[in-house]
């Protein structure tokens, strides 16, 4: 498992391939449905975003409330496809990494290739474990949205899998296809 840290530069992003498992340490910003709507409204008005999008990583997540003594409550990924209508504009604005779970549409794949971005999956449903990777969390915008507010989180060794790399390779197609091919090969051998 590869360890990566700090800013997701174009060079670092280009070095990642679909299927790679990494432990990421650095800064990520949570944003999901309602926050995306607002971010894209700002972009369309030509106004600055509440965080610097250059080489930023966005995590599609809305945490559970922190219990006393916790940095943050459970915080696994939400389904990414709901953000597809907004994602190409954010990538064009400089965002480099996306973390979520589930499929993306072709417009997002094309935008990743065009801008040199990477789409990572965190494993859906692992909210309790992922919360342990969060060293710090500060709300930077849209507190009125509750769980959907934008948080700047510092994560340490957050386990991620590269699903769509900057060349457009897609683990959600390659992984299941490789498994089915192994079944077919085993069946052919048995015959």
């Amino acid at each position, binding site marked *: 498992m590869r360890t990566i840290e700090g800013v997701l530069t174009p060079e670092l992003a280009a070095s990642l391939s679909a299927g790679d498992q990494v432990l990421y340490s650095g800064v990520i910003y949570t944003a999901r449905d309602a926050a995306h709507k607002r971010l894209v409204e700002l972009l369309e008005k030509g106004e600055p975003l509440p965080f610097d999008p250059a080489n930023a990583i966005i995590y599609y*997540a809305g945490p559970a409330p922190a219990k006393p003594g916790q940095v943050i409550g459970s915080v*696994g990924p939400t389904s990414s496809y709901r953000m597809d209508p907004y994602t190409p504009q954010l990538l064009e604005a400089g965002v480099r990494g996306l973390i979520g779970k589930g499929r993306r549409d072709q417009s997002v794949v094309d935008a990743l290739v065009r801008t040199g971005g990477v789409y990572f999956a965190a*494993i859906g449903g692992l909210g*309790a474990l992922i919360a342990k990777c969060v060293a710090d969390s500060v709300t930077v915008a849209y507190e009125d949205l*509750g769980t959907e507010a934008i948080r700047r989180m510092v994560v340490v060794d957050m386990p991620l899998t590269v699903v769509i790399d900057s060349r457009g390779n897609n683990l959600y197609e390659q992984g299941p296809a490789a498994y089915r091919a192994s079944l077919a090969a085993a069946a052919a051998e048995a015959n």
Partner: protein
Amino acid sequence: MTRTILAANITSRVRQLCIQANEQLPEDVHNCLMHARLQETWPVARQTLDTILENASVGAAEHVPICQDTGMACVFVELGQDVQIAGGYLEDAINEGVRLGYEAGYLRKSMVVDPLRRENTKTNLPALITCRVVRGDRLKITVAPKGGGAENMGAIKMLRPADGRQGVMDFVVDAVRAAGPNPCPPIVVGVGVGGNFDHVALLAKEALLRPTGDHNPDPYYAQMEDELLERINALGIGPAGFGGATTALAVHIRQMPTHIACLPVAVNLNCHVARHMEVVL
């Protein structure tokens, strides 16, 4: 002879169920995951299943939600017709239990007031309550928190009677294939067959309440469940959609009579955090 149950008792039980259901993976689901882990041959899938089991242990040991999506509070009630609720209304008592449970348990509030205007209710209310009146003097309450990711991958279709068993099977497999990695596999697949447009959706959801992996009591449908599970797992979607043998842990079908012109079918998916907890008062 009526038996009296206090509304306050219902509230406190529902409060407790909401918290427990979100922190403790039910034993039936845990056993299915363990079994799948033993059977799984694909390395990434084995690793993913290990992590999923580890995460569930953290939820139970540290009293934190297994998943941050602590769901819509789906509450299923079987109300014995000889029960009298005293000291309040049944739905109010349930809603108050949900409100208290989501607050005290540090559970996420995920409900919006209006589907289009989308302002958070900040209480996770209202609960989605389904109540059936049954024989007897007991009150059974099942709390099944349901996350949005898996719920969004549901499907419903009014098939033709001529489409038959094969048509139903194909529809279910197509729905799971289309869902792919989105509903957080390994999933539990609830299937409703029969009734009408609205009842078939409820059948699919109620099918998910059955102990995971238990078969339909009718051997005809039990065999369909086995065949569907085999076809679904041959899709190779695997845990988290990264590939592998474990796409679904179980398929549960629930059927009911229907009209001579109709063959409704519905699919409701549960993620691997297939939560359900019940109490009988």
